[in-house]
Structure formats: C-alpha cells, structure tokens
C-alpha cells in the first residue's frame, strides 16, 4: 500500500498544473463566491412617470435608484422602460403627486421581491391620517370646523412577466444555458485531449486538414447534440413549469446558437491547452462554476460586490440568461437585446481566435520556425 501512496504522490508532484489547481481553485472559488453569494439587492433602478412625476421623484429613496423621470408619459411608457431593461420598477403618478401604480419586473426574481418589500415600507412611511385627524379635532376649538383628511388610495402593485414571482419561471430559461455550458464546455473540452492521449493528434497534424477544418469538425457534432438538448430542456420546461414564451423563437434560437458557439469554443480551447483529461475537466470546471454562480442566474448581479461583478461581464452565460429571460418572459425584441448579443459576439470572436491560434500551434509544432505548406514543398529551416 505504501508503494502505491508513494507512486501516486510522485505522479501528482510531476503534474504541476493539476497540483496548482488543487490549491488555487478552492481558494479562488471561496473568495469569489464569498463576495458574490448574496441575495440582498441594495439598488433597484426606478423610473417615475405621469403628471406627478416631478414632485414624487423627490420622495424616491433607497433602495430605489432613480434613472429617469417622464412627467408626460404614462403607464405604457413605464412598461416599455421595464421591458427594455431601463428600470426594474416604474412608479406611475397622478396629477396630485400620488402613486397610482407600481410596476415591477418579475423576470428578475430577487430584485422584484426586494422591490415589493421596499414599496410596502414606503406605504408604511405614509403619515397616519387617523392620528392627525384626532389631533386636529383636539386642537381646533368646536365650531371652527375640522378639515376632513382622506387617505389616498394605496398604489396598485403590478408584477410584470412573472405575476406569481415563481422561481421556476425565472430559472428555467437560464437553466437551459447551464445545460448548454455543461454539454458545450465540459464535453467538448475532452475532444482534443482524447486525440492527444490516443496518439492520433500527430496523425491529424500531417493530414491535409487546416486548423479551421479540425476546429469546426470537433465542434459541429457537439453543436448538434447541444441544440437538441436545448430544445428538449425548453420543451420540458414549458410543459412542466408553464414557462411562457412571450417573445420571438427566432431571437431565442439566434441567441442560443451564438451562446453555444462560444461555449463550445471555450471547451475546445481548454482541450487544446490540456495535457490530459483530468486537467481538461478541472479547467472546464473553472469556467463552468463561475458561470453558474456569477451569471445572474442565481444571485442577482446588482447584489454582487463590485470587485467580483466584473467577472460576470466576461462570462457568456450572463448574456444568455439576459437573452433567454428577456425573450421568453419579457418578450423583448432583438433591438432591446443588442447589448447581450453584441457582448456574446465579441466573446465568441475572442475565444474562437484563441482556439484557432492554439489549434494552429498544436497541429503544427513547426509554426515557431516557419509557416506550414500544404503543397509540395522544399522547406528550409532558419
């Protein structure tokens, strides 16, 4: 047994990358997730619309953060602001400065719940009219007439897109992305490593295939499998949990294909830099775990510490969650989702470029000396 223990330690010591990840990964995850794991929403973006918007806007306090005031707009504009992501909450006011309706975006579960609580606190902060009326009655001598104070009607609270604030409705569109991350990154990350370990990579290197041929050839089967997976997850999610589809299927499919391409490319990139399957899986987990925890799928982005939140903005799942929730729950058109689409595309270009470069290097160890030729050649070394 001792011999076995010693052998394992020797092998572990030689696998420096795995050893480093065994120590670095848990510490890194602890620090990042420690700062990210928070359901407390400290800031809720809000717009105030209607004729009393200006006077009410002075009363908007924390956790609400006023992003716009539109005295000439009404409820329809407020809904539009919420749909396009300008605000999470909209206060619709009447001419006397009273709030008649509060619209809340239910697609962002924790923000919506925080908004509900904050609105309830605001209502509790209203003056106690019954107590004031009694006080006036005591102070004003009989015969002078006591003014009658009437309490304004409480604002109507409307939760858009997810009226029951059901967790499943918010989670299922995002979970589809998580499944794509698992299929795309984790499984694709083993693709090239398998070639390396089977000793077939060398053979690929001399075949008349370009790095691009190999990259696309590696990604395409997983792409198809993941696309089928996505269809299944969405179909079952809609059937079992009643997740609505308010937007366009075409926009969702476009977003999913773009996201899938990015995640598969990440998988292939990981595979191309890993020496064995263990390393590939560890590196894949290094990208998968942060995506699950930092993408806004579970913890709201607004509640993350600023030092950690930037990580969320370089993770593709962050943008797919925005696209899938936006399309399915809020019915956002592609024009409202241009930002997540653009960021996903940029991420895709960056990752694919790195993956292609890495493939070129992997399939052509000579690249450091001179470019490889596919035709008959008389190559001279430096």
């Amino acid at each position, binding site marked *: 047994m001792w011999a076995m223990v010693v052998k394992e330690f020797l092998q572990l010591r030689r696998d420096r990358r795995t050893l480093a990840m065994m120590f670095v990964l848990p510490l890194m995850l602890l620090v990042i997730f420690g700062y990210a794991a928070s359901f407390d929403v400290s800031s809720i973006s809000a717009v105030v619309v209607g004729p009393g918007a200006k006077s009410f806007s002075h009363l908007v306090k924390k956790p609400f953060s006023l992003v716009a005031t539109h005295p000439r707009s009404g409820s329809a504009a407020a809904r539009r602001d919420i749909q396009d992501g300008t605000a999470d909450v909209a206060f619709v006011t009447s001419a006397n400065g009273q709030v008649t309706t509060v619209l809340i975006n239910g697609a962002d579960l924790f923000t919506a719940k925080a908004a509900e609580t904050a609105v309830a606190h605001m209502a509790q902060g209203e003056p106690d009219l019954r107590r004031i009326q009694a006080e006036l009655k005591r102070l004003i001598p009989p015969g002078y007439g006591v003014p009658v104070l009437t309490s304004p009607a409480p604002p109507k609270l409307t939760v858009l897109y997810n009226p029951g604030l059901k967790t499943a409705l918010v989670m299922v569109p995002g979970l589809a992305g998580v499944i794509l991350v698992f299929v795309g990154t984790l499984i694709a990350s083993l693709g090239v490593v398998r070639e390396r370990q*089977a*000793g*077939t990579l*060398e*053979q690929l*290197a*001399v*075949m*008349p*295939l370009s790095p691009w041929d190999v990259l696309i050839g590696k990604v395409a089967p997983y792409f198809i499998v993941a696309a089928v997976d996505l269809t299944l997850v969405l179909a079952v999610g809609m059937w079992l949990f009643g997740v609505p589809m308010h937007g366009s299927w075409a926009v969702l499919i476009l977003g999913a294909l773009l996201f899938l391409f990015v995640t598969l490319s990440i998988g292939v990139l990981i595979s191309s830099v890993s020496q064995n399957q263990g390393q590939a899986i560890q590196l894949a987990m290094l990208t998968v775990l942060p995506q699950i925890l930092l993408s806004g799928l579970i913890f709201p982005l607004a509640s993350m510490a600023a030092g950690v939140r930037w990580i969320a903005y370089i993770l593709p799942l962050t943008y797919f969650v925005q696209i899938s929730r936006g399309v399915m729950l809020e019915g956002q058109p592609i024009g409202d989702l241009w930002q997540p689409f653009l960021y996903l595309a940029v991420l895709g270009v960056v990752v694919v470029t790195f993956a292609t470069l890495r493939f070129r290097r992997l399939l*052509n*160890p*000579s*690249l*450091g*000396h*001179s470019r*490889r030729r*596919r*035709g*008959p*050649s*008389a*190559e*001279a*070394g*430096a």
Partner: protein
Amino acid sequence: MSWGVSGVTVRYRTLTALQGVDLQLQPGEVRAVVGGDGAGKTTLLKVVAGALQPETGLVRRPAAARIGYLPASSGVYPDLSVKENLDFAAAAYGANGEEVALRRRLLLERAGLADVTRRLGGELSGGMRQKLGVIRAMLHRPELLVLDEPTTGVDPISRRELWWLIAHAAAEGAAVLVATSYLDEAERAAELVLLDGGRVLASGTAQYVATAMPGRLYTGDRAPGTEDALRAWRRGRRWRLWRPEGCGAPDGAWLEVAQDLQDAVTVALLQREIEARAGGAA
C-alpha cells in the same frame, strides 16, 4: 521526383535530436532508418512527414495530401471500428470511390483484417493495430509513405504481412521510409541510414554498410581481456571482437570472420562509444 532532407538539425530545448542529417528517398524504393532508442529515428520521420519543422536544413516532400504517415503510436482511433478508421482517413485525404473501396478490401484481406472490420480499434491486438495503421497510411496511394516502427512488438506472421504492405506501397511507386529496430528488416530495404545520437553513422545499401566496416572482426568462445573489453560483444553463444585497422589480430583462440550488417552496425555504435569516452577522458 525524389524526396528527403539535407543538413537537417532539430533541437528540443538543450537536447540535439538530429544533427546535420541527410537522407534521399526515391519513388518505388524502401529506405530504412535504424538505430537504438533515442537515436533520433522518430524525430527524423516526423521531419520528413511534416509533423516537425527542423531548426536548420532543407526538407523536400510532396503535398500533405500525397503523404502517408504512421506515427509511433499507430494513429488508430480506439473508439472507431476498423472500417470507420479507414473511412475517416479516406475522407480526410479525399480518397473516395469504387477504386478506393476495392483497394481497401484487397489491403485488408492481405493483412488478415478482412474479418474484423467491425471491431473497434481499441479491441485489436498490437499487430492488428499496426497493420490497420499502415493500411490507413497507404490507402490514398501516397507518393511518400513514412512508417515509424510498424513492426515493433509484432509477431513474425504479422511482420511478414506488414512487409507485404510496405513492399506493395513501394511497388505502386511510393517512396517509403521505415524506421525499425530490426536489422533483418533493414536488409530488405534498398538503402539504410544508421542513426545514433542524432547523427548519421553509416548509410547506403546493407551490403555497402557491412563491407564498409573498418578494421577486422573475430569470433571466439571466451570473453576477451580488459584491453578489448569495450570492443567485444556476445552474439548467440559466441563472442565477437572487433579490432580497428593497425591493431593486429588478438592473442588466443580467435578466428577472423566476415562481418554482416548486424556486426557492422554494432561496430559503428561501439566505435562511436569509444570515441565519446576518449573525448570525455581527454
């Protein structure tokens, strides 16, 4: 058109794997690269096949689509069947059609693999895997066929089948380069290159390499004295002793014998070892 390398040098960080190596390959001929472990055989084959670019030197090879390469690991996908492995290679090299199908059937039959086309690569024996690897490398009728130790660890019958495949490729006009540790196989080749420590120790036909051996060779029943200890080795049940030119015949019951390729290669390696020791001592 002939292929090959001239003055090729390859270094892996501080290790010089090849040093100024020349090699000519002619269509329709088999060239063998022989040498011990770490001699530089695999590196030379990688350079010729295009899997590795030399630091210096010239490489002449056909287009990638006209090269067939069997890496040291056989290059067979363990999770694909024999048929699927060949289908992939044929598609990658653009070799499709009825003629390729017929050729595949012929090669599989001659290699004794016709009955196992559905078997996974990982389920084949070592010899079967090597034969499949060679068929895969030559399926598309390459102009240059590079085979890295195709017969190592293979039983005699499979070796014979493998050499049928190699000879068949040469007969079809391919320039074939084979790395091997077996000198009897090297004797089959039109010419051979003996590598050691990344340098060419000898090259030419097997007969030329054997006759070009300097000095004289003796055989005896007993081990020589300490003076000749570095120049002696066992061959079968008897001893061989090599004396350089000018050293004269050894004392005792030693008979002079004519050297063959195995003796010549051993002498070349011993000579280099002795020179290295002398250089180190100086």
